């Protein structure tokens, strides 16, 4: 009897738990309903009968970075569909082969090996510095064009012969930011706080070197661990130096905490960060403490570009929200167009569709005008040149304060 009542209690408990979890899901954004979200944006060929041109996409669709990854994948699917709708490439549709990496290098390697060994894609698109770094040697060995999107560690340019970035590396926007804050805003003493990973470390070093080269002094250079939630020690050291500006090189999940704790500790100096901070969520979490924050942005805004306005409207119509990391998704969208342009170039030249020919075509073409991010120049040293937009939070919204070419 007792056993039966226990079983009944257990069954009720299971039901309540499942119900709670299911309902909790109802209240969330669809951002990391990862597979479902990406899957809801079906790839379409619009009746194109030619042999598909396969392009790999290695991105986190699950895991901690899926909030960004899913939206970036959605952007690539939209771009491929748009290209196919407009006739594809010489009548051949683009077919994306999307594989989840969880932003894990090991899974990235497995994904790219599948692209090169099984799917035989002549090119692939990949995001996240750690994944791009891990898969670059495979791109070289298999002579496959690897397009890095969103990863901004300066080392990306030196990863290999076949790895190119479509995204400005950290030295582009951080150098512009450091020069602007010293030269225009007249900040003399800077403190730098950074997350202890590739993105944080390299970006912080670039900012420090650029700020000092511009004539300023970096008075504190403090790291924090990715799992930290208490930055009292680092903030105490920053506060002791009384800097004019604090630059934070972190990730979207830790940036609000660092800024909140700085403000709570009475650090009232100007705060800046890079493009990871260009996210409305940051303002939501920080409220008034976000006011005055300066962030970099590497893409045109809704206000300055009708194409971007249309793109954001589509997100709001389809998903009921803006994409996570809007500029990153724009670069992913345009990355498919970069592939289209180089494939077109190779096919028009009557060459075979190989990674070698595609990589050569990228440098030969050099300048492109892309649908969302506009003009871009691919340099032979595997970097790109782009204007940098500086944004500042004013009245709980990002406003452009400078464009640096």
């Amino acid at each position, binding site marked *: 009897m007792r056993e039966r009542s*226990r079983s009944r*209690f*257990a069954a009720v*408990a*299971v039901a*309540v*738990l499942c119900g*709670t*979890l*299911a*309902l*909790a*899901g*109802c*209240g*969330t*954004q669809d*951002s*990391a*309903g*990862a597979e479902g979200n990406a899957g809801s944006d079906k790839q379409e060929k619009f009746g194109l009968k030619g042999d598909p041109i396969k392009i790999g996409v290695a991105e986190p669709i*699950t*895991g*901690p*970075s*899926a*909030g960004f990854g899913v939206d970036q994948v959605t952007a690539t699917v939209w771009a491929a569909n748009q290209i196919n709708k407009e006739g594809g490439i010489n009548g051949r549709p683009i077919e994306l082969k999307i594989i989840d990496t969880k932003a894990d290098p090991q899974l990235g390697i497995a994904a790219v090996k599948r692209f090169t060994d099984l799917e035989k894609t002549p090119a692939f698109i990949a995001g996240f510095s750690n994944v791009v770094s891990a898969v670059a040697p495979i791109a070289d060995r298999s002579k496959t064009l690897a397009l890095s999107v969103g990863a901004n560690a300066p080392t990306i340019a030196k990863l290999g012969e076949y790895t190119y970035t479509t995204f400005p590396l950290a030295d582009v926007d951080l150098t512009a930011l450091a020069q602007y804050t010293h030269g225009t805003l007249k900040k003399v003493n800077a403190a730098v706080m950074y997350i*202890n990973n590739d993105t944080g470390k390299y970006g912080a070093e670039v900012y420090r070197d650029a700020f000092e080269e511009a004539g300023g002094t970096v008075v504190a250079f*403090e*790291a*924090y*661990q990715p*799992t*930290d*939630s*208490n930055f*009292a*020690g*680092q903030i*105490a*050291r920053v506060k*002791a130096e009384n800097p004019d500006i604090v630059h934070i090189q972190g990730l*979207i*999940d*830790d940036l*609000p*905490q660092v800024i*909140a704790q700085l*403000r*709570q*500790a*009475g650090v009232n100096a100007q705060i800046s960060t890079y493009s990871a901070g260009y996210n409305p*969520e940051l303002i*939501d*979490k*920080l*409220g*008034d*403490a976000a006011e005055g924050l300066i962030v970099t942005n590497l893409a045109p805004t809704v206000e300055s570009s009708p194409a971007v306005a249309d793109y954001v409207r589509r997100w709001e119509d389809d998903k009921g929200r803006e994409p*996570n990391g809007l500029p990153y998704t724009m670069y992913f969208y345009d990355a498919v167009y970069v592939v289209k342009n180089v494939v077109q170039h190779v096919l028009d030249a009557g060459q075979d569709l190989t990674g070698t020919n595609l990589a050569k075509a990228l440098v030969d073409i050099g300048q492109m005008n892309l649908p969302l991010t506009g003009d871009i120049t691919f340099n032979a040293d595997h970097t790109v040149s782009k204007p940098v937009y500086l944004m500042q939070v004013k009245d709980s919204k990002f406003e452009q304060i400078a464009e640096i070419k």
Partner: protein
Amino acid sequence: MDNGLQIAWSSTTVSAPYVLLAVSFALVLKVSKIWNFSQPAAMGIAFYAMIFGTVTMGLPLVLAVPIGIVAAILFNVLVESIGFRSLRARRAPSMTYFIFTLVMTQLVGYIILMLAGSQGRILGNTILYETFNVGRLTISVWDLRAVGVAALALLLFAMFIRSSPWGARMLAVSNNPDLAALHGIRVSTVYLLTMSISGILVGLAMYLLGSRVAITPEFGLAIIVETVAAVIIGGIGNVWGAALAAIGIRLVQGFSVLIFPSLWQGFIVYVFMFVVIIAVPSGVPGLVSRLSKTVRTSLRGPEKAIA
């Protein structure tokens, strides 16, 4: 000096939720003799149930927090009544418990990931709290809340253990479950009660953590090593030792920045935990007990010789 005081205060207040988690883990280990690695799953369920309460139902936090606590209790009761009970009945080795709890954590983590997404979430509208100064010390409303909630929870827990008949039964079962059963104590009920209390502590910890930092479905797994380290350093079976060790780890982490480059902070904390665990496997209280015994013996020695 000011820096030291501020770091000591911040590290202590930030350790409040970690203290609750360490006490929860140590309690289950003491009474049920199980290394409960499903605690991160309970943490995730508690937090996302609170998110459900605030976001989906539009409830104020004061009502959403009990929902999270109840969800954590239900989960822990399920783990005990379905998992641990059947493993005990089959006389499963301790490694099976370990694997079972880890599997539970991974399973729940994936379910939460699929349902709620992987983006970091916070409880309430902001993680920015009002601050005020006491001398050169900056204190935030969250600091007071964390210390208050943790202190009150631990006080009630201590009173329950010391003064209630069920507390006495828990102590009896933790000492010898077979003997306790012979004295008429329903051991299975004590195990359920232990997991329920663990659920309450976990729920309160997640309320404090979620109102300060962005929580992801994998958050619990990321800090379980620190929790287990606190339990070992505090002395296995010593619930209050685990609480003090959790504070100690945070203090070491905070103060390490004043001595070593901040880049080494994570490394220093793990070196500290490694050294203490290797040097004092029975925990700091065990070391203190051994030392005091040695001192007593050496003091008694000459007396005996004289006698």
